[in-house]
């Protein structure tokens, strides 16, 4: 199948699923802008991609997505990078970066680390890049969610689990937040007559090192054991590229995808009241609407 060259942003593109997707998309002729936390890993990922595919069009930008200010800076760096390369639009935004932490760590903005990186960063980055996506023929937003979004709910009285932090519960909640975000984003985009479509990707159990980042002891042991049975990151990367480039998924109206097939997300993740409440809370947290006009615990 022939795809026109597309412009794609992928966060967390220096390892795992993000890197595999960056390779796949670059090889298919897309202009890929990847992001990663460290300059060093960014440049080695860039070299790795150019090693496989010498005429790949690829740029990397370093940003620590746990900070809202850095997310805003990344968005403006992306705008600048695209403009320099002669593009005035963005076709695909892939919010893929994710974090796991064994401990309750609070970010510079006072949010729990996993909540900030896995939910608030995609929320804000999408908000910032929406005008560029609007200018695309077929703007697409993809969030790397997970099957761990099933069988959980949001704890509204302590959404960042400050008081009773548990690594897995916190992680599951953020992945649920991804699906809720995609659901509400699609609803809002459709209501405003936009052509942008948003998808949540379920990568399945993938053999990456996410379970070794910011964790210790038992969590690492479990992950070492579990990830062995997982698929290589190229498998979800293929689905990511499919959602990014192929027009077929857009027509289905399905939002949750695994292995290039639509799948039913959890019933809770489709509740409009929950999605709306999370959206409004996230807007306040990111300082998108005026000064706080309500309170959340």
């Amino acid at each position, binding site marked *: 199948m022939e795809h026109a060259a597309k412009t794609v942003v992928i966060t967390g593109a220096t390892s795992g699923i993000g890197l595999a997707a960056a390779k796949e998309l670059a090889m298919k002729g897309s202009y890929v802008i990847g992001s990663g936390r460290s300059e060093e890993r960014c440049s080695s990922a860039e070299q790795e991609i150019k090693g496989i595919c010498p005429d790949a069009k690829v740029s990397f930008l370093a940003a620590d997505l746990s*900070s809202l200010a850095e997310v805003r800076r990344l968005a403006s760096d992306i705008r600048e990078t695209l403009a320099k390369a002669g593009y005035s639009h963005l076709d695909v935004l892939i919010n893929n970066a994710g974090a796991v932490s064994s401990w309750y760590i609070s970010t510079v*903005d006072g949010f729990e680390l996993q909540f900030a990186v896995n939910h608030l960063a995609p929320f804000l980055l999408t908000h910032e890049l929406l005008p560029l996506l609007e200018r695309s023929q077929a703007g697409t937003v993809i969030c790397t969610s997970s099957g761990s979004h099933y069988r959980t709910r949001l704890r509204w009285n302590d959404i960042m689990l*400050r*008081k009773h932090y548990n690594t897995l519960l916190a992680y599951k909640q953020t992945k649920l937040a991804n699906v809720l975000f995609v659901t509400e984003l699609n609803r809002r985009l459709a209501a405003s007559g936009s052509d942008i479509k948003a998808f949540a990707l379920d990568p399945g159990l993938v053999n990456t090192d996410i379970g070794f980042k910011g964790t210790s002891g038992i969590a690492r042991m479990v992950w070492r054991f579990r990830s062995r049975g997982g698929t290589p990151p190229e498998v979800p990367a293929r689905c990511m590229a499919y959602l990014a480039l192929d027009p077929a998924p857009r027509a289905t109206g399905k939002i949750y995808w695994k292995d290039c097939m639509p799948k039913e997300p959890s019933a809770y993740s489709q509740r409009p009241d929950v999605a709306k409440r999370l959206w409004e809370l996230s807007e*306040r947290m990111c300082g998108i609407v005026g*000064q706080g006009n309500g309170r959340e*615990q």
Partner: protein
Amino acid sequence: MKSMAFITGATGGLGKAFAVECASRGFDLFLTDICETPLSRLSESLSNTYGINVHYCRCDLTDADSRADLYANVRSGGFLFDFLINVAGLDFEGAFEERTLSQIRTMLRLNIEANLELTHELLKMRDPATTFRIINVSSLAAFYPMPVKAMYSASKRFLLNFSRALGEELRSRNVTVTALCPAGMPTTPECIEAIEAQGFAGKITTCNVGYVASKTIDMALRGKPVYIPGLVNRILRAAGSVVPDSIVARAVGSRWNAARSRRMWRKKAHKAYS
């Protein structure tokens, strides 16, 4: 009327947890710390998220002039406080002989001098309509003489004794003083590394900061003079109080030395790998 809390060391791990906890309870905040940028980030975010008023003023608490500027700034705002949370403090871990004179002075100034002065000044700005709650961040280290952390544990002992005495002194004046005595908390990569180097012992004595901050405010509101987070830590404290100090010091010293050498070994091993 809305409550207002004054927090020092507000952008560090525990200080931030206190700021978020107070904000989630709807308190207005006055924050201070040594760097301006993190203060402004945190203030903006808390006010956006919780719809409260947040004021801040940068201050180097080890410097008397900087502290004087801080008091002037707070006074000019005309605030009335009902919480003072003294979090700012530091530790230079390692052999006493290896410390520099400037490190010794810095620790005394921050852990002791600044705490006493702030408490003294803020008492003048308390809200007369309500009970004034002071929280001093001491440490589990306050209960033991601790080799390798000798200065630190002694400075925390100072805060513990001061808090208890001041609490009694001001009991009839509608003021409560709570000394928080936590074990190590996973707030920075260094702390996490130190906790992990202690292995199982580190793990079971460790509590998440969010939990600690929330419980401490509850304890202060109940007027508890001392709060030790974590059951294991309370047991350690109880055990420490029936064993003679000389034996405790010996035991703590050997445990720290073992943990330190494990850490060194780990670092070496890490280097060898990479």
